[in-house]
């Protein structure tokens, strides 16, 4: 876990230093002594290993350094401003996706080969091919412009978060539904389920105790990589719905070539993903009796 994080940080740091052109290259040529002063102020005149050590020790104290473009802010302040919105959006979308996806998957898995099952899976398959960059603007068009049910952009009230959350959650709910359905269909045929059935267990105990925990294992392992793509999706959603989250700062920073800001966002995102993956592993061990018994 730490190794992954260390790799990311080192990789990002190395890339930034490898880049041609300094962060202060602008339209206008700066006088050399001013540029030298600027470089000294941001410690860019030190040898590379010292810069690396400085960045790492800053990171250990939770300091991501100053923003190269927005002079009065450091990266911490910018990220702190966006984090509540992005984190809230991400968590809400994840739960929406889980509830929707598992619900649909259960409905389809236990009523296999019925009309409802086919309909659900057909809609679902289409959903997987619908990228957020198309769905999110279409949702704005239909629900905000034509029907006027929800506001189109901004972050003033809870209503502003309904459409972004759904837009972000939809592709994942589709994938989760597919996995849940496949898991249920497979688990139903397992010997341990037949044994449980032969013991005369009640329907609900059979489903909740013997089928679902096994059937949901693929969903859990899907959540790890999904976290990474959920973040990239949130960048688009924040852009479309005009939410001032980290993703917006990331795109702005990228367009302005604000190296430290972009670096900081990548580091924060990676840390979030790595932590999330750790919890996914824990959940996996907790759900799967085979892993649990070994300990």
């Amino acid at each position: 876990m730490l190794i992954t994080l260390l790799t990311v940080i080192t990789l990002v740091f190395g890339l930034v230093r490898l880049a041609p052109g300094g962060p202060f290259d602008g339209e206008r040529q700066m006088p050399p002594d001013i540029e030298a002063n600027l470089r000294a102020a941001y410690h860019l005149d030190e040898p590379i290993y010292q810069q690396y050590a400085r960045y790492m020790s800053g990171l250990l104290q939770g300091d991501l350094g100053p923003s190269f473009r927005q002079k009065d802010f450091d990266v911490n302040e910018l990220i702190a401003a966006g984090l509540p919105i992005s984190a809230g959006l991400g968590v809400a979308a994840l739960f929406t996706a889980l509830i929707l996806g598992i619900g649909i998957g259960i409905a389809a898995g236990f009523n296999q080969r019925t009309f409802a099952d086919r309909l659900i899976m057909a809609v679902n398959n289409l959903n997987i091919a619908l990228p957020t960059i198309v769905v999110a603007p279409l949702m704005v068009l239909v629900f905000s412009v034509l029907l006027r049910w929800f506001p189109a952009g901004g972050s003033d009230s809870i209503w502003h978060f309904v459409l972004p959350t759904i837009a972000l959650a939809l592709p994942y709910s589709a994938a989760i539904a597919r996995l849940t359905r496949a898991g249920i269909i497979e688990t139903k045929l397992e010997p341990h389920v037949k044994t449980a059935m032969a013991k005369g267990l009640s329907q609900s105990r059979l489903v909740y105790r013997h089928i679902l925990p096994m059937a949901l294992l693929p969903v859990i392992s899907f959540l790890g990589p999904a976290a990474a793509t959920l973040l990239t999706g949130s960048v688009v959603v924040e852009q479309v719905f005009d939410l001032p989250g980290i993703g917006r700062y990331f795109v702005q920073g990228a367009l302005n070539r604000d190296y430290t800001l972009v670096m900081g966002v990548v580091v924060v995102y990676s840390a979030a993903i790595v932590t999330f993956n750790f919890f996914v592993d824990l959940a996996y061990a907790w759900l799967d009796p085979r892993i649990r018994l070994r300990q």
Partner: protein
Amino acid sequence: MMLHLNKDTARPNNKRKMRRSTRVSIILLSIIVIAAIIGPELSNWQPEDIDWDAMEQGPSLAHPFGTDLVGRDLFVRTMIGARTSLTIAVIATFVSLIIGVPWGAFAGYLGGRVDQFMMRIVDVLYGLPFILLVILLVVLFGRNPYLLFAALGAIFWLDLARIVRGQTLSIRQALFIEASRSLGAHTGQIVWRHIIPNVIGPVIVYATITLPSVILAESFISFLGLGVQEPNTSWGVLIADGTATIESSPWMLIFPGVLLVTTLWCCNTLGDRLSDHRDEIQRNPVNL
């Protein structure tokens, strides 16, 4: 389960009976590819031509897909966008093949510590928000389209490496490999001449699944304004323009959006079918 097997074994014998979704996606995909190649030639307009009498107009006879804010014909721009998006997708997929296949083949063939080390690298990279790193690359090194290809390819080789390694493990003990080793062939020769040609089947299947992911990644980056730049265009750029003007001119979003979705759906369907088909062949090689 029994019933399922029977149905599957029966299918390869009558090849004419393709699933309807397969046929539909092959036809649609062919139309899109042909349109991307010859489409721009069919239109009376050039992608950068400005029709001063028709700015931000909806679809009409003169402009089947409408025009954008400055009066450029959207039909021809969408076709050019298709050209860009599909070309980037094909090249990036190719790059991922060039990195992923040898990586997996060497890891699988050499085994032991080398294998562990190489696959450990893949595992570490797997957990990263890779598309963000691509954006970082684009920011640092400028918006060079070649870099975009390379960077996209560099994301998608991970899965390929895993698949190729798995396949290599299953054939590394085969007699013909042992034979060539005893004849004195060195590692590079064995991997290149014997292992890679034998794992190419699953690789092709996986490449068809990679293609839509690359299209999606490219449109995502271009949507954010960090990929393909004006006056060049791609589906991502067109969709971004359409999103900006969604209230006044929704057709600017709808046409490129529909094309993108159709392409993704066709590629996904074909990829699924191809891998189903491969599973069938593996289960009963007699039908080959």
